[in-house]
């Protein structure tokens, strides 16, 4: 570890903390449906969209209606992309003349992008035409992100509103309005500026296809160009992570310099940081938001420390062969160890899943942290919207546990937490271990599952475990040695991604609806304080124990066994 490395990490956190309130304020304006300066330009677009779609943006929805409308929209998007990918061969914008995708791969990819996972069973440059990248994939990068933020708004309203009912049902906003506003007034404007920055830094943006090159040594090389920058911007900002190229943000055309790398990391966390502030503002006490952010940042820094330490220490197996320094297998020279380790922890703490180095080739424990981050439910900052609503589920469990310890009715930000909310929160959180461990176990015994891993021994098991963890957690990064483009993995991972997204969202919206209908319970001397250090510590503990403990046995079989083999020099 170097001074320069730690400087990078602390500068990264410092800049984000400085941006938390400004971006949080902007999000709060959208949460409230207030007019922003951008309405002058984009207001007519918003109103036009509503008119054509027959949407009344002021119509309040109960949680069932909100959920159903959100689901149906996602099914429509899924169908659209499935069709674009299948028909790729006959559609224009295909300079490489690529064929349409197979049914299982098109299904997997369409689910992957709809659920904000962006798992890449496909190989980017070898599979996707320019039109598919733009029309099939880029739109999801916007809309799955906007959906996540809309859902977070819905839950915020559950906590913030006091006895908000219509026909006896708690109302939590309008899905179409939330989703449209976030897309138009937040994601699109930032992406336009971001794209220009990326192009200036060397990221291609063209409809041209392949350029043939005669290298300095006289060999031939084909260089693929495309509309990379416009997709790259929203890929990071929306915590999507699906790259234009197979190698994702390790590819020099996606991420050419140390500066683009730094900005990409910032943009993964930007909205997640801001949403914690928006939550505090929405419930009338910004300290509530800072307390959540503090717990997240503590968990994040612990993860960065372990991964950076392990990667900088390097691989003892290679040291035996005379190789010096840290672990550079799978890493790019221009980023080096610190910026690669930081990126890996950021992308898995959030549900981004973009990678600037190959996690599969990390040291055993250095690669365990990304895996563990996803298993915690990606609540350490987390995906846009998904991170904060996931974390608030843990907060509900935390006040419940605290209530049990001191023997009082649990309350959180002025709302009584009763058995219905606790049951629903447990239901949402239980989906993760059930699906991840169940499907990993299945694939570790079935022939089709065992055909996947590239590496042998415990690392091969880690590859399977990582795949299902990433799919259910909607992350999208991989231990990419796994051959996942088979009907077995495409199908099972597709189902895992769908369940992992929507089986958490529906109980979460049910909580939002039930909370919105409740009266405000003012804080009293008997209330458990949810702003101080004790609360932050409790949150960290609950996330680690309830979120993490379930997965320890699987980690012992994978990365920990791998680590013991690595330090003994046992090869597979």
């Amino acid at each position, binding site marked *: 570890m170097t001074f320069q490395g730690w400087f990078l990490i602390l500068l990264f956190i410092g800049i984000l903390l400085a941006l938390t309130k400004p971006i949080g304020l902007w999000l709060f304006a959208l949460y409230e449906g207030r007019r922003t300066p951008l309405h002058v330009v984009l207001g007519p677009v918003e109103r036009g969209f509503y008119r054509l779609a027959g949407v009344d943006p002021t119509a309040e929805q109960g949680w069932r209606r909100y959920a159903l409308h959100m689901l149906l929209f996602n099914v429509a998007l899924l169908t659209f992309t499935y069709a674009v990918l299948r028909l790729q061969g006959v559609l224009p914008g295909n300079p490489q003349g690529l064929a349409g995708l197979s049914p299982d791969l098109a299904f997997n990819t369409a689910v992957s992008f709809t659920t904000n996972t962006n798992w890449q069973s496909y190989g980017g440059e070898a599979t996707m035409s320019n039109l598919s990248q733009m029309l099939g994939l880029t739109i999801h990068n916007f809309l799955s992100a906007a959906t996540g933020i809309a859902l977070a708004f819905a839950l915020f309203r559950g906590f913030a509103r006091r006895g908000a009912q219509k026909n006896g049902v708690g109302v939590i906003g309008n899905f179409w309005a939330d989703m449209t506003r976030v897309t138009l007034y937040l994601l699109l404007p930032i992406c336009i500026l971001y794209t220009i920055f990326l192009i200036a830094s*060397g990221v291609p943006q063209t409809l041209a296809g392949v350029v043939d090159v005669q290298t300095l040594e006289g060999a031939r090389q084909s260089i693929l160009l495309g509309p990379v920058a416009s997709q790259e911007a929203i890929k990071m900002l929306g915590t999507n992570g699906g790259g234009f190229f197979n190698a994702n943000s390790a590819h020099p055309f996606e991420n050419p310099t140390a500066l683009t790398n730094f900005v990409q990391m910032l943009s993964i966390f930007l909205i997640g940081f801001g949403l914690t502030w928006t939550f505090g503002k929405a419930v009338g006490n910004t300290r509530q938001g800072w307390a959540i952010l503090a717990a997240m940042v503590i968990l994040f820094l612990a993860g960065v420390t372990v991964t950076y330490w392990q990667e900088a220490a*390097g691989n003892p197996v290679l040291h035996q062969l005379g190789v010096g320094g840290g672990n550079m297998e799978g890493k790019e020279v221009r980023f080096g160890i610190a910026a690669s380790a930081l990126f890996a922890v950021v992308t898995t703490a959030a549900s981004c899943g973009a*990678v600037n180095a190959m996690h599969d080739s990390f040291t055993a424990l250095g690669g365990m942290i990304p895996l563990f981050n996803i298993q915690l439910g990606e609540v350490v900052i987390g995906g846009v919207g998904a991170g904060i609503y996931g974390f608030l589920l843990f907060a509900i469990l935390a006040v419940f546990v605290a209530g049990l310890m001191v023997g009082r009715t649990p309350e959180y930000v002025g709302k009584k937490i009763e058995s219905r909310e606790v049951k629903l929160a447990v239901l949402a959180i239980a989906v993760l271990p059930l699906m991840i461990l169940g499907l990993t176990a299945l694939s570790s015994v079935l022939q089709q599952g065992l055909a996947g891993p590239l590496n042998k021994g415990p690392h091969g098991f880690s590859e399977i475990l990582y795949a299902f963890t990433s799919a259910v957690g909607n992350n999208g990064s991989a231990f990419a040695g796994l051959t996942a483009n088979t009907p077995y993995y495409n199908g099972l991972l597709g189902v895992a991604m769908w369940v992992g997204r929507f089986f958490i969202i529906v109980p979460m919206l049910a909580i939002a609806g039930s909370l919105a209908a409740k009266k405000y319970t003012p804080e009293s001397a008997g209330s458990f304080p949810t702003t101080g250090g004790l609360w932050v510590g409790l949150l960290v503990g609950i996330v680690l124990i309830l979120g993490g403990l379930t997965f320890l046995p699987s980690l012992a079989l994978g990365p920990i066994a791998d680590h013991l083999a690595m330090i003994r020099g046992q090869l597979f």
Partner: protein
Amino acid sequence: MTKDLSSALRPAIVLTLLFAALLGLLYPLAMNGLGQALFPNQANGSLVRDVQGRVIGSTVLGQAFTADRYFQSRPSAAGKGYDGLSSSGSNLGPASRALVDRVRADAAKQRAEGVLGPLPADLLTASGSGLDPDLSPAGALAQAPRIARVRGLAVARVRALVAAQAEDPMLGAAHVNLLALNRALDSLSGAERR
């Protein structure tokens, strides 16, 4: 519930199409236009041409250097090596026999060339993309004696060239671009010959 569903049908379909047009066509195409107007060189891949105008590579993207007279590039898992249509890392785990066999063979080659001390890690490891355009300064300097011998240059000249081309960004790691370095090497040799 059926009423909830049917009321969602029109917005779901109409907004899918409208957003597809806005975000899937208008946005990327407008960015194409802006990029081509403002930064045509970068938007088209930062291509490098020789004096005859032939494209010889991109300043951003790595290409294979295997000859003894050039600074050689890192091992690559992109296709058969530096394949621009097949970016990939090796994805070999830390205790992989295949990884150890590859590194052992490459390390023996370095030792045969007379490299002493700890071997620069980047020289013996495959990058994440398989298209890494750079080497660490240490990885380049380790090759300086070989290049000096093959080209009949003073080792100090070659080392000075590496130092002159190296960059050390605060937010990343020290590196030297191989295409630029090797072109500088060619022009240096050309100048000496004249």
